[in-house]
């Protein structure tokens, strides 16, 4: 599945919508919901891997967005990024607090994973769309060793723990931890 390039359409002003939420305008929250829920739900579902839980996460995240809109600070990052961060961390806290690791090992989901999505993205020939979707990050990920890149993608997109990643990339846990730290350093350097 190629990345949704439409996401990068800048017509919607997330910062202004958040500022309106901070003033107590529920229409602004509705506009964010209409604009972003399908994508946010997709992000949450990949992490929590259960439809009902993902919707609970979205519910809680939208209540947080409403309540915390006044703390959004545009000098620290984009409004869109702020919204996605709230959803991702709500999803991550949900799965980490419930210690999912023991239950989860569905081989089916392991195949429909982030690495596959990235590979499909790499193979899609449309360079312009690729640039639009992942930009500099895509270029820097391309430059990582495939196993290390896979670790980052399993973590960020699939919400995997270190041990889940170790299982997916078939490498020892300690090795995976080191790979991730090195990949983060390399990525940060590349993107500076």
């Amino acid at each position: 599945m190629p990345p949704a390039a439409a996401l990068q359409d800048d017509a919607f002003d997330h910062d202004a919508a958040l500022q309106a939420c901070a003033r107590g305008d529920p229409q602004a929250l509705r506009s964010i919901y209409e604009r972003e829920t399908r994508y946010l739900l997709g992000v949450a579902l990949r992490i929590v891997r259960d439809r009902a839980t993902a919707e609970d996460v979205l519910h809680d995240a939208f209540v947080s967005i409403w309540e915390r809109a006044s703390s959004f600070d545009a000098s620290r990052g984009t409004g869109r990024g702020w919204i996605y961060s709230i959803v991702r961390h709500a999803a991550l806290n949900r799965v980490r607090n419930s210690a999912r690791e023991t239950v989860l090992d569905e081989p089916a989901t392991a195949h429909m994973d982030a690495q596959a999505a990235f590979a499909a993205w790499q193979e899609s020939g449309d360079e312009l769309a690729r640039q639009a979707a992942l930009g500099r990050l895509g270029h820097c990920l391309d430059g990582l060793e495939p196993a290390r890149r896979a670790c980052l993608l399993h973590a960020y997109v699939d919400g995997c723990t270190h041990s889940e990643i170790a299982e997916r990339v078939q490498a020892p846990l300690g090795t995976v931890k080191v790979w991730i730290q090195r990949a983060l350093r390399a990525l940060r350097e590349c993107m500076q």
Partner: protein
Amino acid sequence: MSGETQQSLPPDDLHTQAGEYVLGTLNANQRRSIESRLTYEPALRAAVDEWEQRLLPLTSLAEPIEPAAGLWQRIVASIAQPKATQVTAAKIHWWQWDSLSLWRGLTGTGFAAAAVLSAVLVAREAPPPAAPRYFVVLAAPQSQSPGWLVQAQTEGRLRLVPLGTDNVPAEKSLQFWTKGDGWSAPVSLGLVKPGEAIEVPVDKLPPLQPNQLFELTLEPYGGSPIGRPTGPIQFIGRAVKI
């Protein structure tokens, strides 16, 4: 102290830690630890902000999913709820109050009486620990009469002691909160039953600071649905070092 070791970490490790937090590989305890540090470590917060922006494009690798029809209604019901129970002045949250006359008022008679009482309670307690000790008198915002006492004598634990019995409506709960300087929002310390002392572990929180705010609010039964105070303040006070 842990704050010192964290500050002496090479900047690279700070960025790696922040990166792992944003990636999501940390366990629940590590995540809570980072989240509590974010409020008072600007360098860590900046590093996390950078990673959030850096990795954001990867969210486009998740396939969009249509939400169930009722999701928006659930959200609306939840954001409407706090407004219905809000009795205090709208839009001004207590943690945003900046030493208003309230705090000057608290140094009045009620405060003094409770201070004496707390000294008595402290004297009755076990051997004096080495860590700095604090107490907080929680007083009613209007009458300023003291209602509860917070004692921090054992490291990592707080004790909340009632000075009387409050009336809490059956469909409501009293919820206990705290907020230190520089925290972005209050943290819940749990629910409280009128007239009953409780002990709260606070070892996951940053160390208690002088002047740290404590608060009891009236919340929907079972506690605030959003993790932030939504109802009227019943008692409020700031930590004083003994």
